[in-house]
């Protein structure tokens, strides 16, 4: 399951999608809108995305995960539009036979998402707003794996 959506993110179907009977662990990462950044009081966030490419890059992240870790499933959801403080912007679920690999693979997946998936965050804070500039994606930033993704 890989989606860019303006709707609130629901972890239930994502966990179901990545769990296999061989899975002994599912690690679920929630990225949530925080009320401060760089000493500024953040009022809300807005996310923009190049949805078609973002979905493709999320699948490539999953392929990279599968090439590096013995996981049984990977799924990623990213929300767009306006998010209030406390709402989830990103959900990443990874399942594996045992917890250690699931934790490590989920951590890796979140880092790669922040590097290569074309999604952008605008902070609206007291006194202004700013599109946050994060990582400049490299030309070689494409999936290296061979396995099928969930």
């Amino acid at each position, binding site marked *: 399951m890989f989606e860019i959506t303006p709707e609130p993110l629901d972890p239930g179907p994502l966990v179901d999608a990545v769990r296999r009977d061989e899975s002994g662990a599912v690690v679920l990462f929630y*990225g949530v809108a925080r009320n401060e950044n760089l000493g500024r009081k953040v009022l809300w966030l807005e*996310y*923009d*995305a*190049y949805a*078609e*490419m*973002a979905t*493709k890059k999320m699948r490539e992240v999953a392929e990279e995960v599968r090439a590096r870790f013995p996981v049984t499933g990977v799924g990623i959801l*990213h929300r767009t539009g306006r998010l209030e403080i406390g709402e989830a*912007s*990103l959900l990443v679920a990874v399942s594996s036979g045992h917890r250690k690999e699931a934790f490590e693979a989920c951590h890796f997946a*979140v880092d790669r*998402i*922040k*590097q*290569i*998936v*074309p*999604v*952008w*965050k*605008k902070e609206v804070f007291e006194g202004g707003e700013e*599109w*946050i*500039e*994060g*990582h*400049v*994606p*490299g*030309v070689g*930033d*494409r999936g290296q794996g061979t396995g099928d993704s969930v």
Partner: protein
Amino acid sequence: MDVNVRLFAGLHQMVGKREITLDVPDGATVRDLRERLGSVYPVTEAFLPTLVCAVGEEYVPSDYVLREGDMVALIPPVSGG
């Protein structure tokens, strides 16, 4: 030749359009396209050095040669998550 260019995030907000068409010479590269954007929309000039391009939903280098009708996306530094 005409190249279709998609804009996102801060660039979208600055230019006020989600998609524009830029006229560039035959054989123009991604680097040339960025310069053209800056001359047509001077407000974007400060942001040009950090822009990466995607063609066909894949990141391409600055010396990538564009073709008529290419759908190009200008990708500011990403900040998802």
